[in-house]
């Protein structure tokens, strides 16, 4: 039971991060490998707001989200749009965007190390325990989970029931056809990329409440988010959430029962199984 609940709480935040990446990859078609660094940047922002100005991380989200949106929008417009325009095929764009975002990821790590130093950072916010079903959990984990669930639900409602959400879904299905029905694919892609980045940064701020981060830890989150996105299926919100929960529970179980040093190995074994048996994702249909 302890493993199950801890895993679910962890999976909630993972789901949020992976949703951000899924918007960027599924809709904007950019495999963003700098995703984890933006997450760490979001965590840094929350840390800084809390230690320097005593602003609670929850309140800091109000600032983190729009800033991250703007930054990611600029990244897409300035750095990635030229690659989209010059790419001859989806494959060529994939290679270019992978290399470019790797570059960004290293540059960001370099900058963050220079600004914040190479040390670990964490802060104590709502670190009192709370009892659920006889075991105690950190309150901050619960708060992070609830916030992640609210944001995820909001995103799902927005995508499903608004006109702007419909545009993004059309773009996810087929960019060329989306243009035929009068969607400005450039603007919509930039929007999806920026929104994905904002969600990831918010996820980073939430994670920083209960997880010790450092400037170079981003790649670990990138990998986990990628695994979740592929496991859940590209562009599939429901699949992403289920996959994130599975990963959260699986990691917690391995860390508890076998060895905490094996969490990534556990994630990879899951990934391997998906690649072997369901490369189209948990709920994906077989390509015809």
């Amino acid at each position, binding site marked *: 039971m302890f493993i199950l609940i801890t895993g679910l709480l962890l999976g909630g935040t993972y789901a949020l991060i992976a949703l951000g990446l899924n918007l960027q990859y599924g809709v904007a078609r950019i495999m963003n490998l700098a995703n984890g660094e933006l997450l760490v940047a979001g965590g840094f922002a929350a840390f800084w707001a809390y230690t320097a100005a005593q602003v609670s991380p929850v309140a800091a989200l109000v600032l983190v989200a729009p800033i991250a949106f703007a930054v990611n929008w600029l990244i897409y417009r300035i750095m990635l749009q030229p690659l989209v325009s010059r790419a001859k095929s989806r494959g060529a764009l994939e290679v270019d965007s*992978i290399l470019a975002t*790797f570059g960004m990821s290293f*540059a960001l*790590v*370099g900058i963050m190390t*220079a600004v914040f130093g*190479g040390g670990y950072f964490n802060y104590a916010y709502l670190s009192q325990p709370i009892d659920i079903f006889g075991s105690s959990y950190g309150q901050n984990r619960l708060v992070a989970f609830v916030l992640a669930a609210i944001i995820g639900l909001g995103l799902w409602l927005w995508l499903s029931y608004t006109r702007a959400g419909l545009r993004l879904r059309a773009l996810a299905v087929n960019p060329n056809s989306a243009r035929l029905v009068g969607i400005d694919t450039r603007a919509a892609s930039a929007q999806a990329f920026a929104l994905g980045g904002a969600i990831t940064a918010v996820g980073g701020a939430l994670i920083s409440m209960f997880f010790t981060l450092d400037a170079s830890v981003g790649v670990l989150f990138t990998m986990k988010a990628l695994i979740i996105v592929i496991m859940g299926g590209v562009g599939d919100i429901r699949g992403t959430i289920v996959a994130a929960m599975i990963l959260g529970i699986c990691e917690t179980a391995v860390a508890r029962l076998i060895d905490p040093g094996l969490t*990534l190995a556990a994630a*990879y074994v899951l990934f391997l199984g998906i*690649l072997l048996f369901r490369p189209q994702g948990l709920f994906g249909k077989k390509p015809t």
Partner: protein
Amino acid sequence: MSAQEIGKVIPWALALVVAAFVPLMASPYWLSMATTMAMFVVLATSWALFSGPTHYISLATAAFFGVGTFVTGLGFQTLPFWMLPLIAAALGGILAALVGMVTLRLSGVYFVIFTLGLAELVRQVVTWVQNQTGQRGMYVLTSITEKDIYWMLLGLAALVYLAGWLIGRSKLGFALRIIGNDETVARHVGIDTAMAKVALFTIPGMAAAAVGAILAPRYIYIEPSTAFAPLLSFQVVIMALLGGTGRLWGPLAGVIPFTLLWEFITRQAPNQTLLLLGIVFLLIVYVLPGGFVGLWGRIRRRLHQGGGA
């Protein structure tokens, strides 16, 4: 071999002979530099043999390399040293074939992601096994000098170039060029694309594991976190792409300037190496697509056009 081909081989043979004399003349500092370069020449050239024609970006170098160092670490006391790179190469080839069979049927993104975490996966498992058996790092104390390491790497580099040259002439090389241009076409003309890619992927796997085995004595002390350091994979990718993967000599043209630059930055501003790596990545994508090889091609074309007009 035609006369024209012999003409092409001679400069390479001469370069090899010159390179072989480096340890007799260079100071210890430059010998160590030359060894590092030789190591990256093997790694980047074998990387480009696979990734150049297929456009799959492999980040598995560190995993193969680490396996190689552990082969030496575990076996150097019981086995003669010359056997260790061979065993490492065999293991590296098997690991590469397994990874390839799982991921190379799918699109390039899956492959990148899987290889990105492979070194970390192997490192976690090795660390765990060491913890279980109560073993920590290993000392590799041998009588092998830096000169020996350099010569072995040089021999390995010659082998990699020979392999690249042979593949370029073979049916496999032809098949791979078609796959790189259009995989659907390749499948329609009856090429087993997955098998061709897996076969080719074993080459960087074997080469990187052998390099790891040869270099282990240089490190003296081996532990998982240094043997499987993921940075190595990225350095190899960047050197190969900086040089360009379109020609066999491309990675060499990337290794030499980048190793010197890296050394300079490491001494001047050790905290900024990652920033440098990021900037060079971005430079390659935005300014130098195709690397120095692509640049050279463009310059030559312009000269031709200028001469013709």
